[in-house]
């Protein structure tokens, strides 16, 4: 639990992350812990950055939020929650690396790339299973996508464990 709580802090530090969509996923998802931790920054961030810069910024974000809540199926929201969690953990590791130094560089790299790799794999799974992208993947059924996902994750974590020293 600890990393997640800290993640909230980490998140609000790094402004370039894509928070507007992803954290919004969580309100209705089943991961209570992730929900609470990840929604907070979203609420605070748009208001802080949007308030000064642009008048339509607020509306824009709320638009996206509404669209997201309307159209995303429950399972995909689950994936999004997981991705948000990965971003949080990754950001936490990065902040640790910057603040406390990267001494066991192997360990940092494999930990960080595990989160990044898992993130892109999950994103790929999300893309492949999305209804809207059906036409892009004639050869990939959702079941195939999931089995691919499992295989790739296994490979990823094998390398990470091997590299961590």
């Amino acid at each position, binding site marked *: 639990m600890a990393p997640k709580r800290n993640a909230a802090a980490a998140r609000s530090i790094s*402004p*370039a992350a*894509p928070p*507007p*969509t992803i954290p919004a996923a969580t309100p209705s998802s089943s991961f209570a812990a992730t929900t609470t931790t990840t929604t907070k920054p979203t609420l605070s961030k748009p208001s802080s950055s949007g308030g000064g*810069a*642009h008048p*339509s910024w607020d*509306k*824009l974000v709320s*638009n*996206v939020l509404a*669209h*997201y809540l309307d159209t995303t199926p429950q399972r995909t929201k689950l994936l999004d929650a997981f991705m948000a969690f990965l971003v949080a953990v990754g950001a936490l590791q990065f902040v640790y690396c910057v603040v406390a130094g990267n001494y066991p*560089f192997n360990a940092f*790299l*494999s930990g960080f*790339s595990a989160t*990044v*790799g898992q993130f*892109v*794999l999950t*994103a*790929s*799974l999300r*893309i*492949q299973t999305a209804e*809207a*992208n059906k036409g*892009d*993947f004639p*050869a*990939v059924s959702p079941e*195939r*996508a999931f089995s*691919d*996902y499992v*295989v*790739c994750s296994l*490979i*990823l974590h094998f*390398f*990470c464990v*091997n*590299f961590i020293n």
Partner: protein
Amino acid sequence: MSADPLQVLASAGKGESTRGLLRVIILLLIAAAAIASRLFSVIRFESIIHEFDPWFNFRATKYLVANGFYNFWDWFDDRTWHPLGRVTGGTLYPGLMVTSGIIYHALRALTIPVDIRNICVLLAPACSGLTAVATYLLTNEMTPSPSAGLLAALFMGIAPGYISRSVAGSYDNEAIAIFLLVFTFYLWIKALKQGSMLWGALCALFYGYMVASWGGYAFITCLLPLHAFVLICMGRYSTRLYVSYTTWYALGTLASMQIPFVGFLPVKTSEHMPALGIFGFLQLLAFLDYVRAAMPSRQFQTFLWMFAGGTFGLSLLGLVLATSAGVIAPWGGRFYSLWDTSYAKIHIPIIASVSEHQPTAWPAFFFDLNMLIWLFPVGVYLCFQELADEHVFIVVYAVFGSYFAGVMVRLMLTLTPVVCVAAAIAVSTLLDTYLRAKLPKPEEIQAAEASEGKKGAKSGLKSTSKPVVGVYAIWGKSMMVSALAVYLLIFVLHCTWVTSNAYSSPSVVLASRLPDGSQHIIDDYREAYQWLRQNTREDAKIMSWWDYGYQIGGMADRPTLVDNNTWNNTHIATVGKAMSSSEEVSYPIMRQHEVDYVLVVFGGLLGYSGDDINKFLWMVRIAEGIWPEEISERSFFTPRGEYRVDGEATEAMKNSLMYKMSYYNYNNLFPPGKAMDRMRNSLLPEVGPTLSTLDEAFTSENWIIRIYKVKDLDNLGRDHTSAAAFDRGHKKAKKASKKRGPRRLRVD
């Protein structure tokens, strides 16, 4: 003419399964031909490891097989780079050795006892068979015509550009790496087309294997991001690109970091930054793509500008900070020499001194690729005609590969696959057009239309707007087809000729023709190495120029000062200094490095061009790079700027250790005043050089290898010059006549 047998053939191969079977058989035959054409050297000479680098790979493989994988991984080699040693396990690409080790153990498990040497010798031909198959698969992704794939496989199998590095016995990293290169590209195209994680992961795995095998993996690391970038710039971003690229990058980078020699390089050096940059860029694009679907377009515009601008500014700032803080290493010297061909000559003579790092001369393209080189642009043009994602890859690869092949002779190797693929597309399109036996019917208009563009390109006429222009006349078809057939036959002849004449010499064993036409084998290298192995202490240190380091380690099994793994420029320069200075300077250097024997290669008697006197200027240059005030290249040229070895040679030249060792006692072979260097065609001075700190220990049959023993310190505490002078004076009085007798006997 060609219609009748063709129809027979077509009716024979009507069924889909028959065609499949035929295709497999043809592919197998092609693979067999690829293997067979690489066996010239084994048949002509023997099953022997070639050249220089392969000797190290062979030695490492033997170590791996004898001591197991873990010992190999932790191998510290104290028999090279004396007195430094080399952490060999951590500074090599283990893919090649591990592959042969696995094959060896697999065969042993099947109770087929094969000598590890034979596995090493035959690994490259075996891999070339696999390369042909991989090229077939890659080409099949490009075009629906199955003949293109088979043609590409055939071209790849016998193209001299690839054979040059994969004949039997050239047990080098490239032997296996080209197969992995082509196969990784195939998997990448497959992943991109299907947008599948699994193919992406397979691509990453083979990329990891490639990283483990060859330093040229950077070519893939740069080419795939470039392809992705070009696609994005063309507005062809798709979710499939996202899935395949990110899967490849995330897994492939991790896989590459498993190799100790690569380690953290993928996150620390500039060569790998494009891949990382595109990875980040794709994340951004995917996010934007998602947001675009969620909001109206006008809002999206403002959003896009703010978001993209902010991110770009931030990442640029980050990159500048990281580079200036030294987190990301700047480009390495070898890469600079790829952009500026004269860079290495000025700054890093050791890179420039390697012949395969020279820019390519244009005849080399014809020599190595023959007719493929002029079919290559046609194939690229045909790719432009369709220009799906995979065709963009071929175009990008062609541009990239051509540039690099032009810059460095060695990189002809990476160009060859794309040339084969493009040429095969061209030839098969031609054949498909002209071999169509039937007259075009209205239903076939579409098919004819497709091939029309290419014909228009050939004749320069615009004929695409007409309804259909098939090739009706039988004579036109037969002429075209027979011309192509002749070209293909000539291509096969050329490839065989080049392979047999240019690329099948082991360079350890030389062959020459006697006046009566029979073959004469010159085996001086092995004679000398065998002498070293039998007549010297096991830990006798041998000093030679770095070219021969691996061979001495592999064949003579003696420690060397420098070898072909040129990681320590200073150490090499030290040897260069010892070779190019006078004896008084060289002797302390040799004593400090505990040198027992010095080995030089001398081609003057035989007219052998690859000898040390011809390489001597590089030794001087490399030494000058470290000690500019002690060694100067200018002093080895005569006032008129000539590099001479005869009576008019400069003092620096005549006093250099290399010169003395090469020509010591050489004039005793000839009648007085007639000593002739047949390599450089110059008459040597009547009085040969004298050596006072070295003793001649061994000279091979044709004088190619000469080995000298470094004298111990003088017993009476004199310096060697005066001791030698004393000896000479003593001997001259007593047995001047005797001295020449035995030498001549021995030589003749």
